[in-house]
């Protein structure tokens, strides 16, 4: 008896392509919604232990040990980031910015048995309620490395290349 591989059990590179596409898109949409709504614990739970969350200065094609980045978090620093937001006195996000982002142009870049690398574009509207009440628009490309963990996708790496990453930026204390 043969079974059709599914997202929970089968090698990802043996999945029916539409099933993989749908699973990846569902993950990205959920991740976006949790970030938009500043649901910190749920967002953090999407990450693997070897997490790498990177917002490069300019495009992400440089040696991170030689050049500075806006955000360059391993799991430990990412946890600190989330815990800081949860203190209630992270004034740069008190109150949290209302946000909505649109994720689109999803492309699977590579697929192996357990991992899929996926590129996507986003446009994010952020209302900076902490001082100026300014509506800020952010746009860029995300590259996720997703890995199957306990029968579900989790993210091991997220690189966010902002369109304006070569320029001075206002507060980036929310979750991209």
């Amino acid at each position, binding site marked *: 008896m043969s079974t059709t591989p599914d997202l929970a059990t089968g090698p990802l590179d043996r999945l029916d392509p539409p099933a993989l596409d749908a699973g990846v898109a569902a993950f990205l949409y959920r991740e976006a919604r949790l970030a938009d709504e500043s649901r910190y614990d749920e967002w953090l739970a999407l990450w693997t232990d070897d997490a790498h969350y990177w917002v490069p200065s300019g495009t992400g094609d440089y040696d991170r040990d*030689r050049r500075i980045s806006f955000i*360059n978090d391993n799991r430990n620093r990412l946890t600190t*980031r989330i815990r800081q937001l949860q*203190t209630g006195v992270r004034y740069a996000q008190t109150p949290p910015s209302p946000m909505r982002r649109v994720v689109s142009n999803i492309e699977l870049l590579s697929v192996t048995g357990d991992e899929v690398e996926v590129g996507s574009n986003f446009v994010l509207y952020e209302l900076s309620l902490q001082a100026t009440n300014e509506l800020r628009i952010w746009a860029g490309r995300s590259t996720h490395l997703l890995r199957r963990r306990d029968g579900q996708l989790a993210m091991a790496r997220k690189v966010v290349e902002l369109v304006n990453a070569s320029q001075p*930026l206002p507060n*980036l204390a929310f979750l991209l």
Partner: protein
Amino acid sequence: MNPGLHAVAASLDVSDRITPQKVHGSLYTDPEVFEAELHRIFHLGWSFVGHESEVPGVGDWVSRRIGRDPVLLVRTREGEVTVLANRCAHRGVQLCAGGSGTNGSFSCMFHGWTYSLSGELRGVPQPIGQHTDASALALDRPRAVDSYRGFVFANPSGTAGSLHDHLGAGGRELIDWAADLSPVGELDLTAGWLGQRSPSNWKMWAESDNDGYHLGRLHASLWRVAPGTQYESAVLAGEDRVVSTCRDRGKGHIELEFWKGYDKELAWLGAGREKVADYVDALVAARGLERAEELLWKGPPHALIFPNLFLGEMNLAIIEPLSAGDTVHHHTPLLLAGVSPEFNTRVLRQSEAAMGPGGFLLPDDATASERMQVAFSGTGGWMDLSRGLGREVLEGTDRVGHVSDETVNRGFWRHYGVVMAP
């Protein structure tokens, strides 16, 4: 400067908005004050432009502003570092776009006027019709450019006296101290710059960068989740237990002396000797045991060199004024020459944690400044800057207070009042 702005700059008197204890908030929001500052502080005075290590090779340039004027910091063919207007002498087109590059010459995109790396006009297309003698044309430049330990400053008017006097003994000591942390006495500012853009006045950044009073409150969210930093003993331990001080070194140069409150050597690096043994050995060999041990304890300075250079411990920052209510705070990690790549990577990681729009500290400072800008945007109001007036002391010509005292704010504004006098 255009005639209208020049009239504002020449006649505006802000002396009634600054008292020994109070400063009026309109100095942050008044567009006429801002124009006067561009003239009196950034045109008539010295300000920091960049560091020689940013342009190591011939033709290397980085883009900066003096006040609001775009300039290039350039390494010339002779190997000197100079500052040129980033503006064609013909029709005023910005010559170089982007933040940095390497050129053999500067050629204008519009009509092709071409300049040497030191700003002389070398070529004009279709030269038969050229009327003005090309040898009389060149890129504008500040009348005075000088450097100290690789730190390049400019005074566009050329009337501010020497850089030596602008820095004074206090400013020179601070810069020496930063450079001496390197076993070869040189910085290596090659990690790139990040900019924090903030709708707030530039002077708020000069002040908040050097405000020892706000750390416990504004940044409480970080201390709660990242215990064990050097700031606990240096500034957070309670007013009566903290022995750190602040220092007004005169001429607007102000300092927080966190190092007095550190509880161990190398606290500023978050690493004991065993982790940076090569660095310790090299520093002792270069500086001698006494100076090396002093530096290993103190770490880097935390100070403002008036008006726009922040020696922010293992960061260096430039405060760039865009308008009365708009500022960019640029920073780069204070990488050292003559140390291991791992040492500098450690500095880089620390910088990413603290600084910039995604860091754990600076976004909260931006929020506080932006709320000040909002709150003062109407008719304004006075700020009380009297904290510590009754307990600060004179050490030579320096005024020294508790690290939480506003001795430094008063020092900043006292000098501001002097240079802003019409």
